[in-house]
């Protein structure tokens, strides 16, 4: 069977969930071969093998951390040369898209980004995209070269599929021309202990209606009662009430959870672009005309400072 390269997104060998989703999708079109760049490939290989990776091509080099993106493109290209895959899949993160794009130029292939589903077709993999703020669903494929496709988080449920997951070292030479952009310093983001926004099953977001940083704990308390991630609208982020890393929308994160709760958010098109594909949508807004109500499965017209704490209490009671 044809091999499919899957680019592994991980933090020091801890594989992130979108990669496991990629492995599931990859099995629909061939045999997944994972490409792990950076430390702790052995630890990663265990999880990757459990999810269907027949092989893990591993490389570690200081250049991956010292320079931006390009050295990783060199490595992925080495993996491509070693395997001659039927397709290359990457997560739709900023970096995943950039690595995929540059690889596509090098190997003379087309690229599709932000796929939300993938299936085998007569003429290669067919990708589903959700475009124009999720108002259209398109089906596309790549007609030249080896398909390079980036996939959004939450596009498939990771399935266990035990495979060998044998680690093979990949020889990588980082070109001098790939050392153009130095990473002078790196400040890791502090963990909040909450689930990662793009991966969370439930997201609770607050907007301008939250009316101040000092009120965001109202949103956080509901999120914690549900085991959810916290999101924010750009209005809340621009006002400095919540970090930009939590922004949901066109220029923030795109989320697709099982449940999305929007409190004090009007539902502007740019916000909708980042959350409209959520399975169940709930809104709390005191304005019954707010456009967000056009999207909801359940909406409460009311003051979030009454509704949200009452809901939090109720969730806690029911969960015991």
């Amino acid at each position, binding site marked *: 069977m044809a091999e499919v390269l899957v680019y592994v997104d991980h933090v020091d060998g801890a594989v992130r969930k979108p990669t496991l989703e990629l492995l599931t999708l990859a099995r629909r079109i061939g045999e997944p071969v994972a490409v792990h760049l950076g430390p702790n490939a052995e630890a990663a290989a265990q999880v990757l093998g459990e999810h269907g990776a027949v092989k893990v091509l591993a490389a570690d080099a200081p250049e991956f951390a010292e320079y*931006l*993106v390009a050295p990783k*493109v060199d490595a992925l290209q080495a993996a491509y040369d070693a395997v001659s895959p039927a397709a290359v899949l990457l997560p739709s993160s*900023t970096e995943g*898209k950039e690595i995929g*794009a*540059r690889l596509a*130029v090098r190997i003379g*292939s*087309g*690229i*599709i*980004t*932000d796929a939300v589903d993938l299936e085998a077709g007569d003429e290669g993999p*067919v990708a589903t995209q959700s475009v*124009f703020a999720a108002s*259209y*669903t*398109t*089906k*596309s*494929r*790549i007609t030249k*070269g080896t398909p390079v496709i980036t996939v959004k988080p939450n596009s498939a449920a990771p399935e266990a599929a035990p495979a060998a997951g044998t680690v093979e070292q990949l020889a990588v030479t980082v070109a001098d*021309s790939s050392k*153009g*952009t*130095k*990473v*002078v*310093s*790196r*400040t*890791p*983001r502090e963990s909040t202990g909450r689930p990662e926004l793009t991966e969370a099953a*439930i997201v609770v977001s607050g907007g301008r209606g939250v009316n101040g940083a000092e009120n965001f704990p109202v949103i956080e308390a509901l999120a914690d009662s549900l085991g959810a991630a916290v999101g924010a609208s750009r209005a809340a982020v621009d006002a400095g009430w919540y970090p*930009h*890393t939590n922004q949901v929308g*066109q*220029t923030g994160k795109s989320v697709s959870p*099982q449940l999305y709760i929007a409190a004090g958010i009007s539902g502007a098109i740019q916000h909708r672009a980042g959350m409209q594909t959520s399975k*169940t949508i*709930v809104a*709390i807004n005191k304005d*019954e005309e707010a456009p967000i109500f056009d999207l*909801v*499965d*359940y*909406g*409460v*017209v*009311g003051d979030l400072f*009454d*509704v949200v*704490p*009452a*809901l939090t209490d*109720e969730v806690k009671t*029911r*969960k015991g």
Partner: protein
Amino acid sequence: MSLRIVVCVKYVPDATGDRHFAEDLTVDRDDVDGLLSELDEYAVEQALQIKEAADDAEITVLTVGPEDANDALRKALSMGADKAVHVEDDDLHGTDALGTSLVLAKAIEKTGYDLVVCGMASTDGTMGVLPALLAERLNVPQVTQLSEVSVADGKVTGRRDGDTASEQLEAALPAVVSVTDQSGEARYPSFKGIMAAKKKPVESLDLEDLEIEADEVGLEGAWTKVDGAAERPARTAGTIVKDEGEGGKQLAEFLAGQKFI
């Protein structure tokens, strides 16, 4: 020596309008107004600030798009860019990302550059890959997704706020930069700026000028093919209740019914 800045700007259908696909599954541009992608206003703004901080700099705005894309160039010129290049050719209709990057790269090389500034993503395709594609094609450093950028002593530095870390980046010129909407509010064109823009030069280039064969771009030459586009079915109207003291409880009831609690 003058710092040559090229800003790539895209003409896009207004996101607040009703965007559609045409029969050939390309974007229907007749049905909805076009404008300068809002995210490219941030790129123009940063270029203007880099110019203001430099001794001597010149800003060229560049677009690949149909005749109307001229509007996007005029807007950028009225914000303060010095001149414009418009790549326009009937054979460009339906060009994908790889093709667009080819055309932009050739036009940038023809114009001459020390720094290319892009937006973080277009507001229609929203791929966010063009800057990386350009860096690869031009074989220069990519310094992308910056929320802060400055240029001095032949170097560009900037801050990239990623998922797990915030990085400080540095590269020697020439380089390709892209900036986010966190980089700073874009200025409004002044009346003076709008008047001045009318007199600024707009150079028009076609595929022949760039030595690109028609079959390398357009719908036929595309590396990707859209086989179908379906409008998302309207959501079935949800339940909406007014909070009269029980809103939180009712919502909890709904969430429990859906097995979220």
